[in-house]
């Protein structure tokens, strides 16, 4: 079976100040294969696909497509060759509707005028494949991160493509949507489309990929047939050493009730009641659109509460703004890191210390020494990969940006922490470190609410899980009942 090589990189090199993002990389991609690309945060995966897409200029090397050599790639050239990229961060136009985004760059109908009916009709046809109810007329900025991702995928597959590059497409999706995406990948593959698939979820790599390539620190490590390798081996290739994967054990049992929520209604959620104890990790599960992020925003005072009560340590409290929440020592790690979490133009240090800058100030003057200390501590602890803490966050790789968001919420030293997809886009090694950090926090009496679409993580880390479905509480699952199918049934409302 000598499949044709459709895309190959030869000795591609890309330098950034202080980092060699791609170091003399050569890889071949075959027609009709699903080729997974693995590597730690900052290994150079996104840089590599940006080189293929022509989004960046490389310093050296050749890109060969269908045997034709290209020394300089541009976005329009790569697109005309049938290459479509789903970027790790979103590329949709927030102020246009879904259908306009999906059909962008396509000519629909014959008239030069924009035929919005036809566009909507075509777009909803594309969206239908996903079995997710998204109104094509809705503006993208009104969609959740997961819905945006689905629109992004829909946009890519609606085109006539030869090579589809997906940079962590599953990161914001929950199990059900990932299944749908896999079906689509299979269909594309049958049509002979080559798929380059980047993910930090190794189980996905084993499910859908034919071959897998590993990168480390900008270098190419190796390519394997997926069926000839295993998880342990891949991790070792990525990290460069043995890494034991496990969920850390807990030292202390949960204590008194820290937070109690009674009939909370608002922001699309209805009548939600639950408790979290000190030192407990409460997992929050649900499908895309179930109202998990909405619940987090309500608890944090970022959206108005219509009805219901919040009690902290047994005392009813009124939380009207994030500032109130922070005063009550509630912390939130937002799901949308670029829109809500980060100040992209500012430095890593600035970002990590901003929420506590008030607290480490005397007479309003920030104690920069303390600031340095804190930023450095978290950079080392969760391994933010950067030449300098003064680097602008926008220059970091996706996973490293996520680590900054995480560091920011950890540095705030809250009593109650709400994590919305804390490990989105984070590599295996750093995940272990983060799980340990979260466990330590819980052991020290911090109450943690963890929203996660990563079922394995949710089952491994939580002491208890509540499941939301369509804005309502669908059930509560105790540790001894933890079972993926049961939770999925609750989430999809079929239980």
């Amino acid at each position: 079976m000598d499949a044709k090589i459709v895309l190959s990189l030869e000795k591609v090199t890309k330098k950034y100040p202080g980092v060699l993002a791609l170091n003399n990389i050569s890889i071949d991609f075959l027609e009709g294969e699903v080729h997974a690309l693995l590597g730690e945060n900052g290994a150079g995966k996104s840089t590599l696909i940006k080189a293929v897409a022509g989004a960046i200029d490389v310093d050296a090397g050749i890109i060969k497509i269908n045997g034709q050599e290209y020394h300089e790639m541009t976005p329009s050239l790569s697109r005309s060759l049938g290459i479509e990229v789903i970027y790790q961060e979103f590329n949709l136009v927030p102020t246009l509707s879904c259908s306009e985004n999906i059909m962008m760059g396509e000519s629909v109908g014959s008239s030069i005028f924009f035929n919005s009916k036809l566009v909507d009709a075509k777009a909803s046809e594309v969206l239908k494949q996903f079995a997710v109810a998204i109104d094509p007329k809705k503006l993208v900025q009104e969609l959740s991160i997961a819905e945006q991702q689905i629109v992004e995928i829909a946009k890519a597959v609606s085109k006539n493509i030869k090579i589809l590059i997906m940079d962590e497409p599953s990161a914001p999706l929950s199990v059900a949507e990932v299944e749908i995406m896999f079906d689509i990948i299979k269909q594309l593959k049958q049509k002979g489309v080559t798929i380059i698939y980047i993910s930090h979820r190794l189980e996905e790599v084993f499910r859908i990929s034919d071959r897998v390539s590993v990168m480390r620190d900008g270098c190419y490590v190796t390519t394997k047939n997926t069926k000839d390798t295993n998880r342990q081996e891949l991790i070792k290739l990525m990290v460069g050493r043995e890494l034991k994967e496990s969920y850390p054990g807990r030292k202390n049992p949960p204590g008194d009730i820290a937070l109690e929520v009674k009939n909370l209604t608002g922001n699309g959620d209805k009548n939600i009641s639950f408790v979290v104890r000190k030192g407990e990790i409460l997992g929050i599960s649900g499908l895309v659109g179930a109202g998990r992020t909405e619940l987090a925003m309500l608890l944090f005072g970022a959206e108005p509460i219509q009805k219901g009560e919040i009690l902290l340590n047994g005392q009813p409290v009124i939380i009207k703004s994030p500032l109130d929440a922070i005063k009550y020592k509630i912390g939130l790690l937002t799901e949308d890191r670029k829109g809500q979490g980060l100040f992209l133009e500012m430095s890593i240090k600035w970002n990590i210390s901003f929420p506590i800058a008030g607290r480490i100030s005397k007479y309003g003057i920030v104690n920069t020494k303390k600031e340095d200390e804190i930023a450095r501590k978290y950079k080392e602890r969760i391994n933010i990969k950067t030449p300098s803490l003064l680097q602008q966050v926008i220059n970091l790789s996706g996973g490293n940006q996520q680590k900054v968001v995480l560091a920011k919420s950890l540095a705030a030293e809250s009593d109650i922490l709400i994590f919305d997809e804390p490990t989105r886009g984070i590599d295996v090694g750093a995940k272990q470190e983060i799980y340990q950090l979260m466990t330590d926090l819980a052991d020290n009496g911090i109450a943690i609410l963890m929203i996660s679409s990563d079922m394995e993580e949710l089952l491994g880390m939580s002491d208890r899980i509540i499941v939301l479905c369509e804005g309502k509480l669908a059930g509560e699952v105790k540790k001894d009942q933890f079972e993926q199918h049961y939770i999925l049934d609750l989430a999809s409302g079929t239980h």
Partner: protein
Amino acid sequence: MKNQSAFLSRLGSGIGSFTKKNVPLMILIFLMILFSFMSENFLTSRNIITLIRQVSFTGISAVGLMFVMISGGIDLSIGSQIVFTNVLLAIMMVDWKIPPGLAIPLILVVGTGLGTINGFLCIKLKIHPLIITLGTSAIFKGFGYIINRSRNIMGFPDSFRWFGQGYIWGIPVPIIVMVVVALIGSFILTRTYFGRKIFALGGNEEAARLAGVNVNKMKVYLFMICGFISAITAVLLLSRVFAGQTITGQGTEFDCLTAALLGGVSFKGGEGTVFGLITGIIIIGVLNNAMQLASFPDFSQTVVKGSVLLIAVAFDVYQKNRKAKETVAKVAA
């Protein structure tokens, strides 16, 4: 040998990146060299002091504008705030016989009040400050004319002369005030929590809100600061001109905005340094001065000023576009 060439190339790229980061300073140095060749009167210490004094009034106001701009806002009513407070201060001292020692603090309060009005309108009407302050600009100026009743108000106590015309160690007071305001402004922006919140607001308002910043309160505070600083300018200008006229201060926001944009304060917010701003101010001063030395007619000066503003805007947009391009490359993170 190899080491040496590596060192040289590093030095070369170091200088390259310095010039890239300090475009305003390079422009200023270029203009200074150019004009010193064109006129031998240009690079004399007397001329330089005159030049800086001329722009020091604008410079002071520009610091206020910069606070608002870094937070992502804009204040186009600065000139009119000066018109109103300038005339009112003249009336207080001449018509109402309030001594300067009391009138000046009072007028600073009034200026802050004008800023508060801007701020409240912005947060209540939720319309872009560009529009709000364009409206209040007309209103403030109109009230200035109303209370002035077409007079040329004169007869201030002599003690009032010092602020605009006095010297400290041979340096004009307005320049000293500009330096002090700039230093305080710089300190607030770079070292204090309040300064961080200003950048946060301009960088990502939603993230700032979620980090516990009271966005509305901050916006009002910033307009208040801008109003307060404009009133300081009004005091100095009145003392310098020594006559209460509605013409004083008009159009100040134009030069402030040009200076800010030239100095790298972004129109979009989240970016700006006092150093850049002052560089921008001095560029304007140098241009004004050169045009005066070359005795350009007034209307040609207006054309040049307008062109400089547009060039400054184009420069801002160019930098943004370059960044946007990088960002497009970066979105894939």
